[in-house]
């Protein structure tokens, strides 16, 4: 069977062991039978045991416990066009863009950051430049306006602050 379930089981099992070790270090509270370490310990044991069981099950071809992922993709496949190759570029940009968003949130500001992140994301997925730009800028400004004015969420204006946005 697929490697992923086996691997996940092993990782979760190891994580369980880690959780137990961390839980042992939590303090004991005087006057209480059980301290803050109890629940993490129980959860750790659970992860350790069931992670192992899951990994072992995954290796057994007799255990058809896992619902195949194919069912998920089925409606897409029925559309007639077969899936294209993975969009690694867009994926890398998505992760990098989100990391950049977190780092530059206050300095660059919401509108600037989001416009760039969304525009490049769309271009990498094959949307034409002008359309990607238009959608990115328009939706960002609209969301910004709604959240600032109606929902009173303090989104940062950043570099574009002088424009009165």
């Amino acid at each position: 069977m697929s490697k992923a379930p086996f691997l996940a089981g092993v990782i979760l099992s190891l994580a369980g062991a880690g959780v137990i070790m961390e839980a042992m270090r939590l303090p004991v509270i005087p006057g209480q039978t059980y301290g803050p370490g109890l629940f993490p310990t129980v959860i750790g044991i659970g992860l350790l045991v069931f992670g192992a069981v899951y990994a072992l099950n995954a290796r057994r071809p007799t255990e058809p416990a896992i619902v195949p992922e194919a069912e998920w993709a089925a409606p897409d496949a029925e559309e007639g066009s077969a899936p294209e190759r993975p969009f690694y570029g867009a994926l890398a940009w998505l992760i990098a863009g989100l990391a950049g968003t977190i780092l530059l949130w206050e300095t660059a500001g919401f509108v600037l950051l989001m416009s760039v992140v969304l525009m490049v994301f769309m271009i990498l997925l094959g949307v034409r430049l002008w359309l990607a730009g238009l959608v990115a800028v328009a939706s960002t400004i609209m969301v910004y306006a709604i959240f600032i004015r109606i929902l009173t969420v303090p989104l940062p204006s950043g570099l574009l602050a002088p424009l009165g946005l």
Partner: protein
Amino acid sequence: MQTLLEAFGLIADPQVVVTVLLASIFGLFVGAIPGLTATMATALLVPMTFFMDPLSSIAAIVACTATAITAGDIPGCLLRIPGTPASAAYTDETFMMTKKGLGAQALGSSLVSSVIGGLFGAVVLMVAAPSLARVALNFSSFEYFWLACIGLSCAALVSASGLVAGLLSLLIGLLIACVGMDVISGSPRFTFGSVQLMGGVSFVPAMIGMFAISELLDSLLNGTARQRFAKPQKITGIFHGILPLISKYRRNVARGSIIGTIIGILPGAGGDIAAWITYTTARRFSKEPQKFGTGHPEGVIEAGAANNAGLSGAWVPALVFGVPGDAVTAIAVGVLFMKGINPGPRLFETQGAMLYAVFMIFLIANIALLPIGWFAIRAASKILSVPRPQLMAVLLLFCIVGSFAINNTVFDIGVMLVFGVLAFALSKAGIPIAPIILGIVLGPLLEQNFLTSMTIADGSVIAFFERPIAGILGVFVLLLWSIPLVSAILQLFRLMFATKPVKLTG
């Protein structure tokens, strides 16, 4: 009867009617935006209520909450971003229906069952609020502990991916719930020295990440990111496609309404547990349990009814004892006080007409939900015809803003990203996501009530069975657990003996 007539007079006021209408539309708007919650919609209403008369302000909150929660199902169903922990119980089911082109039907049937559940809950509230509230006050930490156990068991039992996968998912959720400052002892756990993590993992960003971002990642890696999101949605008339479905599953509607009302009355996580329990009962008593998880409306209808029935239920302890069950009623209690209406049993005597008027608003808000909700569903279903790259980009935008807005901190955008990647990896390995949500919601309830009970009982486990209700719940939980345990042991035996023949055939 006199008070009922007076109450009618009170709500006939045009200001009240207009307020209900406007608040419904506002709730719809906020609820339908992915990542924004009913609590946020209600909190935003509070400053506006200062300029309203008492009845209008409560009417506004009631109407706004009901529509916001129902509208919260729309992004959950169409785009896989659940609006509330309760709707996470059936998000994947409705999303599967959307992929099949039945999104509008899924939403429509959940809308109608929600309205029926909501009406049922409101009527129960009118008839029996004071006595029900008194019953709710008999629940101590012992009973709450068992209830949390039942809720958690449901998630594992209902998992379409098998018991072990469900349990693993649940354990991950419980572990996430442990992160942060432990309420009971005040000691930080798994925070790795981060002050941001002291408050625990924020729930909404984690939920957005696990459902929406992981879906996005999946489509990019699958190479489906440029194809149509789902089949074109079939929009049937409400009387044509939906009502027959509801009448086919009328048992589910009834069971969902009753269970939702009962569990919703308990202050705390009542409404959320109710949705999960009813989704499980729907599957347990269904004639076609194998269809669950593949886009089958039965569980959605039952849980939808429970969801809205529980919503009215949460007002019972709030109105009778001033003990709010959730964040929304907490805000409402504050507004009531502001308007000089002090919650308490005397409210039923001194301001009976007022109170019954509030109950009637419940009825009106639920009925108004039908046309407003249906309009929103039809409008929202059109979103799916937008080309996928553009749709995903705008979705990403809302995910980011929604994650940020819940606590106004950038840290939560990071939480969203991390959980998106985690959930993507887990679903690749066949581990379901929904039970993680329940684990996060019920983890604190389970742990705090266990530790509190242990302190009260001086460490004696027997105390968990000594109180009558706790005893019944406890025995029920043990029975529930013994079913899969026994079958697992049997299976283990079978596997042990089956190993050799497999080798022979292989």
